[in-house]
């Protein structure tokens, strides 16, 4: 590739587009379905399939612990994983802003390729478009994933019942806190937790097929996902503040900016609602996986206060945990 930045020609289907495809995309993502270069990829599946799609926009594009490329694979893989599926195939569409550095694109594509290989997912089709300078924020990526649903697994909020235990796979809030710190010049050692969780979920489901429901804890954080489950399952949820794993540094960032750590996004954490009697067994399994080594129980499903989430606080009180307020806005004073 001759030019050092993306030009409108890279998206117009001519020679530049072909070069981008042959020199950058194909060598990184090569697999039988993609290498056919048909208009549509032809895929084999053995079971019911799970499908999920997500678009990724993030500033900064490169952040401590990852970049938009890694994020775009992990995000969709994790949606499939918590649906009880083994991720198999992925599509990737990239929208680039004219002037985007090609070296940055190379780094992003390499990250996508690396994490896809780790997960065992194949990127089978994709698309690249270029928009004029000022019409996008560098790079946007959409991925759609297809996974094979594990036989006998049925994950749904409808299965969640009183008495079940609630497990999380590790420290919460690292992703948001790392992004906010790097965006606003706070010096921390925090890194995004961006990671693929499909091996972890497969191991958990091999240990206990009757896990009731799983979710990845992304935008809106723990508060969002707990409220979703409480509403969809019409159960009450009671968590214990002292059991929720949050790093001191994340608490520090929250104190400075006035955020509630329960509202911070993650990109490599999941929550599981499990039968009480298998909670310990599942935790043992989780802790053997590098992405679940700090897994712990944080609370349980209760019979009263249906549709609501409560939290025992560090001083022994109980308060409501509501849906997060949306956009995270720092306080003034």
């Amino acid at each position, binding site marked *: 590739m001759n030019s050092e930045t993306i030009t409108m020609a890279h998206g117009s289907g001519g020679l530049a587009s072909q070069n981008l495809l042959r020199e950058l995309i194909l060598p990184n993502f090569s697999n039988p379905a993609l290498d056919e270069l048909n208009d549509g990829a032809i895929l084999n599946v053995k079971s019911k399939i799970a499908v999920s799609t997500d678009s990724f926009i993030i500033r900064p594009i490169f952040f401590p612990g990852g970049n938009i490329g890694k994020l775009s694979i992990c995000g969709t893989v994790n949606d499939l994983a918590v649906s009880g599926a083994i991720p198999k195939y992925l599509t990737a569409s990239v929208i680039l802003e004219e002037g985007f550095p090609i070296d940055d694109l190379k780094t992003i594509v390499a990250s996508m390729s690396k994490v896809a290989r780790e997960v065992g997912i194949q990127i089978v089709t994709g698309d690249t478009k270029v928009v004029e300078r000022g019409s996008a924020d560098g790079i946007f990526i959409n991925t759609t994933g297809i996974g094979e649903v594990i036989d006998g697994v049925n994950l749904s909020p409808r299965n969640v019942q009183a008495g079940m235990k609630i497990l999380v796979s590790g420290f919460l809030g690292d992703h948001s806190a790392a992004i906010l710190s790097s965006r606003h010049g706070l010096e921390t050692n925090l890194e995004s937790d961006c990671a693929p969780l499909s091996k972890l979920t497969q191991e958990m489901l091999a240990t206990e097929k009757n896990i009731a429901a799983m979710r990845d804890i992304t935008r809106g954080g723990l508060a969002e996902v707990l409220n979703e489950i409480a509403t969809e399952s019409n159960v009450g949820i009671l968590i214990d503040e002292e059991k929720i794993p949050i790093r001191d540094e994340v608490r520090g960032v929250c104190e400075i900016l006035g955020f509630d750590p329960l509202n911070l996004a993650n990109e490599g954490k999941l929550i599981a609602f499990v039968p009480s009697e298998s909670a310990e067994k599942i935790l043992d399994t989780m802790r053997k996986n590098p992405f679940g080594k700090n897994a712990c129980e944080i609370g349980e499903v209760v019979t*009263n*206060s249906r549709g609501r989430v*409560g939290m025992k606080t560090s001083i022994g009180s109980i308060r*409501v945990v509501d849906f997060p*307020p949306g956009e995270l806005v*720092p*306080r*003034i004073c």
Partner: protein
Amino acid sequence: MSAEEFLKSIRDSASKISRKIRLMEVCGTHTVSIFRAGIRQLLPKNIELVSGPGCPVCVTSDDFLDKAIEYSKNPNIIIATFGDMLRVPGSKSTLRESTGDIRAIYSPLDSIRIAQENPSKTVIFLAVGFETTAPTAAATILEANRLKLENLKFLSAQKLVPPALKILLSDPAAQIDGLLLPGHVAVVTGVKAFEFLQIPSVVAGFKPDEILRAIDWLLSRIAENRSEVGNCYESVVHRDGNPQAQKILDSVYEVADSNWRGLGLIPKSGLKIRQEFERFDVEKIIPIQIPESRPNPNCRCGEVLRGSIIPTDCKLFGKICKPEHATGPCMASVEGTCSAWFRYGGSHFEF
């Protein structure tokens, strides 16, 4: 002492005082901490916590926002503001709904960068806040002065907490028995700025056990009828405050009257830019006229800010007034009393 021990001591004091006690937490950050820790639910029935006028966004008057919105309509102007101001309703709309160029920033110093990057535009920083943030705004003016950055201006509504407390307590209807004084403000002003108070008052930290300690401190004074002013946040607050911050503040600003939502015009309760730096005062350089604002007659934020009603007494609360589309600033701000009541489930609930 542990949180549990403070609570025990609080219960002991409360049982000695047979009447109802109203303690006001002045600062919005305290309000949020109190709700997050669930402190209200643990207090004895005769101890009530009332939120005060300590959310800078909430006490900013409609006409300030109307001016900001009017300025934002000028295509040659960029508005730089703390994000919390964006959703606050003026008399007609919010800044967020404005079509102008509005940038959310985290520090007033960010406005310098925006001004440097946009030399053909005028950048206006919305300088709201209390003694806590005013020194940073002052430092920004000094820096703009040093850099001869003539396209950076300030729309200023900085406020001072002690004069507002004086007015608030002078109203016999307020019935406040003790004050939790704002920790961040006191870092700058020092405890001495509050020593004129005639009721038990104490500077408090923001962690749950620090707040319980301060409540315990107040109740023990109330039980003994001692109107003392104290400091339970010794790790960061000193009697004289931060002299360096005060010096920067004094060099740029002078004390002036200020209009508070809910409390009205309070003499000597605000700051205005000194004549020497007047060229940074946007109202002097680009004067604008806005129609006199008529506040929404159904919104009771003013009474909430005075502690004379609780949010649920307002018939808009939780119905047409919610955090995502707030009628009043106390619901719009992340540190507003109504927003805290809405998000954290009011004072009591069963689980």
